[in-house]
């Protein structure tokens, strides 16, 4: 297994290099001039030129790329062109909110969606099934910001149980952390609950007709065990896949939710950086995300083998 992990991670290195190169080129092909953002509206072309010069943006692309990769190799991700903050500091500041949001969202999601999907499949064709599916479809066809605003209106403004916005570190205490993360996590969870509940239902339906389910019932096991141990485990692979890719997506930041709840997360950082053409930040973020994806996908793949012993790599 260790060998497998090492092989996987080694295989990712060339990919990350290609991603880095691709993003680097993509960014330089995209119009936009960090100098203009720094200088503001009234700057003259000469002043812009001076700033560009200083930022090294006038160097040939090859030189720029070599400089950047050289820095990377020595562990230096550079500084933001705009704010001059070291990129690592920026990412470090944004990591906790994003991670917190992703984890809490996933917890909510898993707690709700899997039972929903299982019950819907179990009660296939009944009103319960239709109701669960209708609710979950609403989950992903309502824009996130609408869900967010509605939750804020109900729980933060009308009922005043949670704050409207903001983020507190979990190290400041559980409640201050939790009361601020609940609504954004719920908001985001609606999408994932919808997706995962439906995925669970679909996968379960494929499994519930199998003979071993009949065996499990013949053994006199409770319906809960039949569903959750025998059926769900067999249905787990596609569910794990969407959980994994969904989680990975959240780790790379979810702009709208972060904006609506004013969470200082990676999603906002990414969009801000893209809109400001803050090259070093974008490049580092994408490298980081692809690294995270590599790890998460590795974990998913390992969990496949754990869930289904027939799967080999």
């Amino acid at each position, binding site marked *: 297994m260790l060998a497998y992990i090492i092989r996987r991670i080694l295989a990712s290195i060339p990919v990350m290099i290609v991603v880095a190169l691709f993003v680097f080129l993509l960014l330089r092909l995209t119009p936009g001039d960090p100098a203009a953002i720094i200088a503001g509206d009234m700057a003259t072309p000469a002043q812009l030129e001076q700033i560009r010069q200083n930022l090294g943006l006038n160097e040939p692309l090859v030189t720029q790329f070599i400089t950047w990769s050289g820095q990377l190799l020595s562990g230096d991700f550079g500084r933001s062109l705009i704010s001059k903050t070291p990129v690592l500091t920026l990412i470090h500041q944004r990591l906790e909110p994003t991670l917190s949001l992703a984890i809490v969202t996933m917890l909510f999601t898993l707690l709700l969606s899997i039972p929903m999907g299982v019950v819907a499949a179990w009660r296939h064709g009944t009103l319960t099934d239709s109701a669960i599916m209708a609710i979950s479809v609403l989950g992903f066809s309502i824009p996130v910001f609408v869900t967010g605003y509605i939750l804020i209106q109900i729980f933060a403004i009308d009922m005043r149980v949670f704050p409207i916005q903001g983020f507190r570190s979990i190290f400041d205490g559980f409640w201050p952390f939790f009361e601020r993360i609940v609504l954004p996590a719920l908001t985001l969870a609606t999408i994932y609950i919808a997706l995962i509940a439906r995925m669970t239902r679909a996968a379960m339906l494929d499994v519930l007709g199998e003979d071993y389910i009949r065996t499990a019932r013949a053994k006199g096991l409770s319906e809960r065990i039949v569903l959750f141990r025998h059926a769900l485990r067999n249905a787990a692979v596609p569910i794990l896949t969407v959980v994994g890719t969904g989680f990975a997506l959240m780790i790379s930041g979810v702009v709208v939710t972060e904006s609506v709840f004013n969470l200082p997360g990676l999603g906002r950082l990414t969009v801000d950086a893209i809109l400001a053409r803050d090259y070093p930040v974008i490049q580092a973020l994408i490298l980081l995300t692809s690294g995270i994806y590599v790890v998460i996908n590795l974990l998913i793949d390992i969990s496949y083998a754990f869930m289904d*012993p027939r799967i080999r790599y």
Partner: protein
Amino acid sequence: MTGQETNDRKGDVLVVENLVVETGGRRPAPILNGVSLRVAPGETVCLVGESGSGKSVTSLATMGLLPKGALAVSSGRILVEGEDVVSASPSRLRQLRATRMSMIFQEPMTALNPVLTIERQLEEVLSAHSQMSGAERRSRIRDILSLVRLPDVERMCRSYPHQLSGGQRQRVMIAMALVLEPKLLIADEPTTALDVTTQKEILKLVADIQKRLGTSVLFITHDMGVVADIADRVYVMRHGNIVEDGPIGDILKDPKRDYTRNLLTAVPALHPREARARISNEVVLSTTELGMTYGASSLFRKRAGTVAAKDVNLTLTRGRTLGVVGESGSGKSTVARCVMRLIDPTEGSIRLRNQEIAGLSRRALRPARKRIQMIFQDPNRSLNPRLTVGDSITEGPINYGASPDAARTRAKELLELVGLPADAIDRHPHQFSGGQRQRIAIARALAMEPDVLVADEAVSALDVSVQAQVLDLLDDIQARLGVALLFITHDLRVAAQICDDVVVMQHGRIVEYGPTAEVLGHPREAYTRELIEAAPGRHWDFPNFRPLPTPSGGPVDGATL
């Protein structure tokens, strides 16, 4: 014919009265047309009959496990210890299962959960229905696994179903059904995949439990030998009806119905036939020093592999039948799968018509595929549940250039040849009985008109009359086309009747190899002798409705005569 007895035998463990089962949907078709049967405490009742006659459906109905929506009880009663199963609530049914009645399913491959270890699947029965501690459960599991004669119990415990041989899975199923020592045991062809020695042990184990706890057994089988050995009473089924029933002696000696008589006369004799004249010396398939070791290491743990086959040397000539018999788990299917190149042998060579195929790539192998075909031991899973039977059968011929129409016409013919209605072509595999599925698998293999046919327990789920019909068919094809057959079986009677040569395998190796008459008639090896002695029903001459003088003297253990 059974109706008269109603009500005079109170205290029966199982009473089925006028059970009618119909298919679901808008135009229900009857599957069972008023079946009645009863099983008294401690009694062993055998249910025999034509493949597809409704034996499994009857047993599933009893367990309350008919596939929802597809089949449903439309009238009749099923009483287990006086309690009606048909109208029982789901939770009550759950309580009844496993504690009062348990079932061994016909197809063990699909009946076991592929993603849970064997230990886990056994363990949960105990934790659901007993108060045992973890340690107690563990030792109980190991006990029962060794009781059903599984070798290497520790490995079995941690294995997943796909890592076991067909017979091993079947024994796991048996262990699962027996572990709680139920009042009523329904066994649906529980020993089809077992070699006769193991089968004998298992039957003895069941008899022991019966003796000890008074368990009633409803035993579904095609093996008249087994029936003769174990049954107290017999029900004969056909077309969803019970056509005859009575104590074992009456049925065997004096069957009333033509159908029953036919059934008995079709039982093949244990005495080997003479080898047929060779029609050719052309070697179509040979293996040298073939060996296969399954790597047991998973992503999580490293373990030494399982040696499933070692030094296997076989030669198959055109038009001949080579039988492979032997212990369950001795590597028969492994050899078959290697020969088919479905798995890559770890050592040795395989020559198909002088072409070495052990190391060929998938692509290079494709032209060779047409020449060698296989009937899988587990027909259920080898048929894609989403394809219609017709699609499955015509797939191969179409691959090799047949027109879809021609292939379909041929498929219908084949279905009829194996005793299925031509309209079966548009149905899906799950709508058939175990034996019907097996015949579909046979039809699929035959559709390819191969040079070599590897048949892995190809007739085990068939009742003797259908079996005879299918064997005749094979014989016929062999005669016409010169197909060479590699015939894996546990049924020594079948082996005796159709094989020219026989290989006996044990522990992954060939222990004896020679002409059938030699090997079965005058076994040299102790293991072969053991096998022959364990053959069920050896004391009975079925076609003549009378007992045989037993060569080894005295009736076989477990026989109730």
